[in-house]
């Protein structure tokens, strides 16, 4: 039973096609990592799937109740405190102020955000704290689907790992399904049930690999070996570290 289904989705910016013929589905409670080389349209795809953008072609079918999203940057409201930022989705849905604050505090607790910092503004928080707020904001409305758009790219290795653990724990506790875009295969192999590889030019999904075991229960060694075997022996991942020269030049 799939909760998110993309059928023949395509998108283009100013006549340049960035996505074409994308078919994918995510099952209930399943975390799917979407990987692909830089500039292949991963980000566009997740924005289309989350309804931030309308696709030019194809259909997006959503069978979940509500979704949250974590972006590449924290994208916090600079004028609102951490607490108000976390509560922002509840404000959109029209919840009362008192209840909002209560739910936001609970969400902050789940991502181990210090209670004492809830009254601070984003400018007063470190990058890792800001991203924690962004994750809490995505979790606050208790969504059954989450979109992640390379959320931890800007963080250092240790913090990245900590954030990945937060997401893994949250997904096990809340059983949400997720579409997790990343260019980091280790991250994908730690977090996901299944890895989808996007075509180099965004023309369809090149292929998928199902991972053994449950996220969070995998040994670091096993994760590392899986990724090595993908990179060395699997033709599907051959172009994963290519760089789109049109963007670089």
């Amino acid at each position, binding site marked *: 039973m799939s909760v998110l289904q993309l059928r023949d989705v395509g998108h283009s910016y100013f006549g340049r096609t960035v996505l074409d013929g994308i078919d994918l589905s995510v099952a209930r409670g399943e975390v799917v990592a979407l990987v692909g080389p830089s500039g292949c349209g991963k980000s566009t795809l997740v924005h289309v799937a989350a309804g931030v953008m309308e696709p030019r072609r194809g259909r997006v079918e959503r069978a979940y109740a509500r979704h949250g*999203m974590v972006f590449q940057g924290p994208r916090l409201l600079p004028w*609102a405190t951490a607490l108000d930022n976390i509560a922002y989705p509840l404000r*959109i849905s029209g919840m009362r102020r008192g209840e909002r604050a209560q739910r936001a505090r609970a969400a902050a607790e789940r991502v181990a955000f210090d209670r004492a910092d809830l009254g601070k503004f984003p400018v007063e928080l470190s990058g890792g704290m800001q991203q924690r707020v962004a994750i809490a904001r995505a979790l606050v409305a208790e969504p059954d689907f989450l979109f992640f758009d390379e959320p931890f790219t800007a963080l250092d290795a240790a913090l990245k790992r900590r954030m990945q653990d937060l997401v893994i724990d949250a997904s096990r506790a809340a059983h949400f399904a997720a579409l997790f875009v990343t260019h980091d295969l280790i991250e994908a192999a730690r977090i996901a049930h299944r890895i989808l590889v996007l075509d180099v030019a965004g023309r369809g999904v090149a292929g998928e690999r199902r991972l053994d075991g449950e996220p969070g229960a995998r040994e670091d060694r096993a994760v590392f070996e899986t990724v090595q075997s993908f990179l060395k022996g699997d033709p599907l991942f051959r172009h994963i570290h290519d760089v789109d020269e049109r963007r670089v030049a």
Partner: protein
Amino acid sequence: MIAAAWTGRLGRTGRFLWSAWSGLAALSLLAALWQFGHEVYGDFILPAPLATVRAMGAILSDPKSWDIAVLTSRRAVEGFVVSALAGALAGLAAGYSPATMRAARPLVTVLLGVPPIAWIVLAMIWFGSTDGTVVVTILIASSPLVFVGVAEGVTTRDRSLDDMARAFGAGPVKRLTTLGLRHVAAHLFPALAISLGTAFKVAVMAELLANVGGIGGELARARANLDVAGALAWVMIAVAALIAFEYGIVHPVRSEFERWRAAAVPWGVKR
């Protein structure tokens, strides 16, 4: 949490009041220069600051003068409110619709290019010697400032925040009320402060020319009597009224909105 918010507010208010000292120092400097001018040019051309303050005291001890000052302030604030509303609404429309913006830009240039004095003449012909003349002149002179500020605010909004709100299911109205207006506020307040100043200046000028009483009317009388001290005293009263409105209303509201900017400055002089 609530207690912390209130102590924070108290601290900000204290800092705001304390900053009055530096303002006072600057004004004292101005008074010293004025005194110097007085000593060079004599009593008739430039009465001493103290004499002016005494004249002001004499004027203010008469309850009728208070009515005059209130009349001018009321007109200025009326015009200010009307022009702020008109400018803000038009600015929002232009900011969100590029076609409106393209059409409005030349109009703003024309409106700002025509000197206010010309509008006063036209408004006098249209409205005669009434409050309408003053309010309309203020509207035309100061609404373009608000318009430009707001339109600028809308066009410089952070679109990635808009996308974020959309991802969490916010429709256009929610995005406007929770993001758009909040961002525009940062550009709106400086524009409001300038347009409030314009409103008072234009109100006095319009009163003087249209002969509709108020501070402008008193200035006209002081000129007729060659009463320089009286004229200066009335000018000081007009400025004092402006300062009362600006520092009593515009600035406190603004600093409440800009708390997060102050938070970015960890220590030292908070401006």
